[in-house]
């Protein structure tokens, strides 16, 4: 390790360290504009010039000594850029000399000659590196006459979300490099030259990237501003509250910037294990639903056929009395549907209400999609080890990304897997029924036939066993039922599997070798495999078998990561909002009814007398029949709420405290930032109030019911959300010790929450200058990890063959679009242009056969539905499959893997 001396402070740093990073270690600040720790250095701004010397060596290669016996230093004739110079042993750096100070003053003065100096109207003012460094190193006065200033275009829309001010731009190329190196969407570039050098977008539509908002944060001046936040407040007037993004299952850490009880902006908060310092545009811009004018503000109760405002007491009493009445006849006539967008506290109390007070297991969070619990169970047992960092997998890790499209569903995970693959050399194997954006980072990209997912996995397993690459020690000591499994696998030769799943056998063998021979092996499996209609159980068991025969579990970078669709899908499973799964991923003895069973079919009588629907909208998927008594708890008057007898207004994630558990099983804390809208209450409070009212009348309940005898109203007294979490931390083993205090560790704010302050007092930047690599949140340990002697059973599950071509010859693959037609997205005007019109993607071969041209209007029929949309003909979808993004206009609740017929209109 080379030792360097910086301003007389000695420090040892790893090979390849840049001077600017070495200086941070000894507390010497070297000012920079173009350098960013996450980006490749370019040495453009020249702000970081320092004096650099190396030890003088004589002809014999020995270091010469000066008069004092210290090594003599050969100073380089020119100042060197600290951001591009790599340290070498014995290097001496001076940053505190007059020459360096002059250089810094010169660079700041140069930058300001062309800068419009319109700080008072600039959104960056107050957290601007150019302001801060001008104050610290710049000259006090300008020698450049204002009338000679170079003028360039201001207010240039660089896409729907970003506004560019070309006058303020200092040509540091951070935005260009972010797009090229981090996001890998090459949509920005420079044009022209000299003083006219300017940022242009190279894509159509302009700035076509899902990560464009991050360029606002890393821009060291006010050149790139958010078209959402733009000119609506000064940054020091905005109070930051630590929160967690409530959109997808990545759980990006964010700061909600609040002013006047509204969200002004959202910026990422650093969490090295989750989102580094980035977030996607959906997380950043789609927040207007929190203060949408059509939010529910009071409880509504149906009177004379109409929903009318009521008091909380009135509504809650009605719910309690009706539940009590129905429960008296049959507790199992009450069902509960809770969306997996609700927080852990809500979901925990929701199931507690049903299981302990009502006495019904008719609970589910899987509304609009149907899947068994097998995959969830695999995560409990084989979940990836604590310490797995998807953004820092190195060449010793092979990761199989199976049936997932993180670009659309978990954008930041795509960003992080790209970093793992490109920066650290992780070996990605991407397998899906189509080519996704992630495939370009994969060492191996495999496209299987939709419906044959399980065959592909069995092929991998068989290839490993055929070549005797399995981990025999592990199998002998920890795995049961191996022989029976191997016997069942007998008919499934690699060739046979390959033929069915349409992947070449040598490719399967090659992937199998890489998996078995890699020191670490991680599986990320996504929605498209999870919801594979006929084969979800077989897929989950095959994935488990793949981990078991290779022994890749129980350690960091090994095991299973399920990429769920929603922000708290993991929490919903953890807290047993399932008919067959209890709290803490236990099994319940008496299985209740699933969402599908509860909702029934349109021509059936509803099987439930009462339904309690929280944070989901089953009626939007069609075929919904209102039960006798329907309670809906939501932010908006959803289609289900319109039918309800009682509607209870809930608070959004921005108005309350809570926790979400992300797709990597990391529980993360979010804090209230806004005051409640109207009389809306947190979900956990509403559930507890209903429970209290129910419990208080239960003394008369006959014994033998599900209710435990010691249930008293006092046990439902929760003053705050943290009290609920305290109970969880004390009683649920997976969440042991995960109190708010523990989850709040390392949660940092960029500036003190003192509200309005003098902007000059505290120079701030948004988590961009100093990266601390902090992580917050807690991951619960899987069985494989917490129990070193646990035995695992290989379970065989016979795969069912892909449906054969019939009158409906094509397989339907359901994709998702990041910006969909959902309620939350629809409230944000600024992203509407990015919501695609509904379309179906067809392979060019099939399209030719069916005589369908690109852009043609087609009719797609499946199950008992027919939808009309535009066709897109391109090469991402394999033959015999069609792809339709879910939840756009008219494409809700599509069945993954169904057979479809397509014809021209």
């Amino acid at each position, binding site marked *: 390790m080379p030792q360097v001396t910086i301003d007389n402070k000695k420090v040892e740093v790893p090979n390849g360290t840049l001077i600017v990073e070495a200086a941070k270690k000894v507390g010497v600040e070297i000012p920079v504009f173009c350098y960013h720790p996450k980006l490749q250095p370019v040495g453009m701004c020249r702000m970081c010039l320092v004096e650099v010397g190396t030890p003088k060596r004589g002809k014999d290669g020995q270091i010469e000594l000066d008069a004092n016996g210290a090594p003599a230093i050969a100073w380089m004739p020119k100042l060197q850029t600290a951001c591009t110079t790599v340290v070498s042993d014995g290097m001496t750096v001076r940053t505190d000399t007059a020459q360096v100070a002059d250089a810094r003053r010169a660079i700041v003065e140069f930058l300001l000659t062309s800068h*419009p*100096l*319109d*700080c*008072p*109207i600039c959104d960056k*003012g107050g957290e601007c590196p150019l302001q801060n460094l001008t104050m610290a190193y710049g000259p006090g006065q300008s020698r450049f006459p*204002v009338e000679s200033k170079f*003028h360039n275009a*201001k*207010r240039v829309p660089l896409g729907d979300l970003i506004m560019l001010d070309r*006058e303020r731009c200092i040509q540091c190329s951070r935005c260009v490099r972010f797009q090229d190196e981090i996001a890998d969407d090459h949509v920005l570039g420079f044009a022209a030259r000299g003083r006219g050098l300017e940022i242009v977008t190279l894509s159509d539509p302009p700035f076509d990237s899902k990560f464009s908002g991050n360029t606002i944060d890393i821009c060291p001046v006010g050149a790139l501003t958010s078209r959402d936040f*733009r*000119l*609506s*407040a*000064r940054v*020091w*007037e905005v109070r930051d509250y630590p929160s967690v993004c409530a959109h997808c299952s990545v759980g990006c850490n964010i700061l909600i910037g609040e002013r*006047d009880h509204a969200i002004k902006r959202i910026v990422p908060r650093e969490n090295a294990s989750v989102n580094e310092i980035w977030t996607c545009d959906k997380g950043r811009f789609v927040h207007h639903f929190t203060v949408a004018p059509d939010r529910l503000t009071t409880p509504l109760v149906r009177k004379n056929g109409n929903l009318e405002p009521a008091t909380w007491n009135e509504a809650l009493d009605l719910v309690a009395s009706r539940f009590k009445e129905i429960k008296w006849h049959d507790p199992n006539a009450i069902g509960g549907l809770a969306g997996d967008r609700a927080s852990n506290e809500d979901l925990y109390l929701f199931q507690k209400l049903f299981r302990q007070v009502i006495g019904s297991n008719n609970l589910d969070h899987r509304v609009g999609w149907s899947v068994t619990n097998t995959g969830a169970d695999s995560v409990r047992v084989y979940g990836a080890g604590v310490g797995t960092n998807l953004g820092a997998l190195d060449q010793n890790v092979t990761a199989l990304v199976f049936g997932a499209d993180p670009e659309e569903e978990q954008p930041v995970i795509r960003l992080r897997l790209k970093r793992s693959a490109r920066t650290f050399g992780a070996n990605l194997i991407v397998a899906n029924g189509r080519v996704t954006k992630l495939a370009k980072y994969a060492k191996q990209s495999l496209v299987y036939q939709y419906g044959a997912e399980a065959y592909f996995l069995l092929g991998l397993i068989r290839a490993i066993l055929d070549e005797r690459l399995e981990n025999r020690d592990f199998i002998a000591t920890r795995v049961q039922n191996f022989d029976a499994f191997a016997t069942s696998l007998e008919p499934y030769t690699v060739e046979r599997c390959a033929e069915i799943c349409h992947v070449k056998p040598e490719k399967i063998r090659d992937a199998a070798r890489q998996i078995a021979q890699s020191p670490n092996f991680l599986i990320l499996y996504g929605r498209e495999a999870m919801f594979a209609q006929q084969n979800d159980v077989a897929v989950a068991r095959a994935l488990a078998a793949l981990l078991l025969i290779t022994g890749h579990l129980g350690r960091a970078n090994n095991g299973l990561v399920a990429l769920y669709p929603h922000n708290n899908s993991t929490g919903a499973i953890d807290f047993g909002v399932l008919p067959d799964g209890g709290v803490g991923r236990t099994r319940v003895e008496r299985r209740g009814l699933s969402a599908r069973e509860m909702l029934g079919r349109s021509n059936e009588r509803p099987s439930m007398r009462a339904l309690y629907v929280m944070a989901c909208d089953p009626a939007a998927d069609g075929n919904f029949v209102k039960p006798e008594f329907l309670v809906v708890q939501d932010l908006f008057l959803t289609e289900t709420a319109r039918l309800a007898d009682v509607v209870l207004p809930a608070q959004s994630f921005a108005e309350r405290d809570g926790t979400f558990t992300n797709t990597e099983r990391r529980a993360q804390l979010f804090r209230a930032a806004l005051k409640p809208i109207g009389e809306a209450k947190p979900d956990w409070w509403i559930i507890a109030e209903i429970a209290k009212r129910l419990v208080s009348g239960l003394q008369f309940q006959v014994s033998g019911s599900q209710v435990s005898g010691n249930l008293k109203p006092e046990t439902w007294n929760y003053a705050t959300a943290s009290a609920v979490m305290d109970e969880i931390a004390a009683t649920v083993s997976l969440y042991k010790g995960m109190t708010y205090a523990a989850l709040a560790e390392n949660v940092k704010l960029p500036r003190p929450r003192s509200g*309005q*302050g*003098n*902007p000059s007092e505290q120079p701030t930047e948004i988590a961009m200058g100093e990266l601390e690599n902090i992580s917050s949140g807690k991951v619960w340990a899987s069985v494989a990890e917490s129990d070193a002697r646990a035995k695992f059973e290989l379970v065989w599950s016979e795969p069912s063959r892909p449906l054969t071509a019939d009158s409906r010859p094509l397989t339907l693959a359901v994709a998702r679009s990041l910006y969909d037609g959902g309620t939350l997205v629809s409230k944000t005007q600024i992203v509407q242009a990015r919501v695609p019109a509904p379309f179906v993607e067809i392979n060019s071969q099939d399209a030719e056969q069916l005589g369908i041209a690109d852009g043609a209007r087609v009719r797609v029929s499946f199950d008992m539905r027919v939808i009309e949309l535009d066709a897109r003909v391109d090469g991402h979808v394999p033959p015999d499959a069609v792809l339709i993004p879910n939840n756009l206009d008219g494409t809700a609740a599509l069945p993954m893997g169904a057979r479809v017929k397509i014809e021209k209109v």
Partner: protein
Amino acid sequence: MAFPDLGAILKGMSVTLREMLTPPVTIEYPKVKKPVAARFRGRHELKRHDNGLEKCIGCSLCAAACPTDAIYVEPAEQTDAARYSPGERYAKRYEINLLRCIYCGFCEEACPTGAIVLEHQYELSYYDRRSAIITKEGLLVQPPAPELNTPRALRDPGNLYSAIPPIKGGVEE
């Protein structure tokens, strides 16, 4: 010794006599109003450029400088179709709570465009606390001519360079 301190009495009476002959310092307020010093700090006004555009650009620096948090500014973006001030930004809402204000003049000093000035109006009394909060309408001075009021459409398609530093007259028309 009958009048040992006659001198003292005379001295005292001379003051009385002198004061009897000088004009009174009191004035008959409110019939008569005393002119205030040029730099007197009274109630605030928001000034306009000669072309009627508001000098205030909604930068909130006055609010940041205010030691009593008496100023509230809500800025917004403007277009040439409805222009309030030069540049991209204007004050959509501007309120001063005169009960909080201590008339220190820091807001004047902080203002980059000379928009806010503590003028000579000192007759500040209210029947209720709410009316002590003066809004932008109350603070803004009259335009030089009725047709030069804001917002108005401007022919110049967005001369955005002149917001800071202010060029005389703001946006050229």
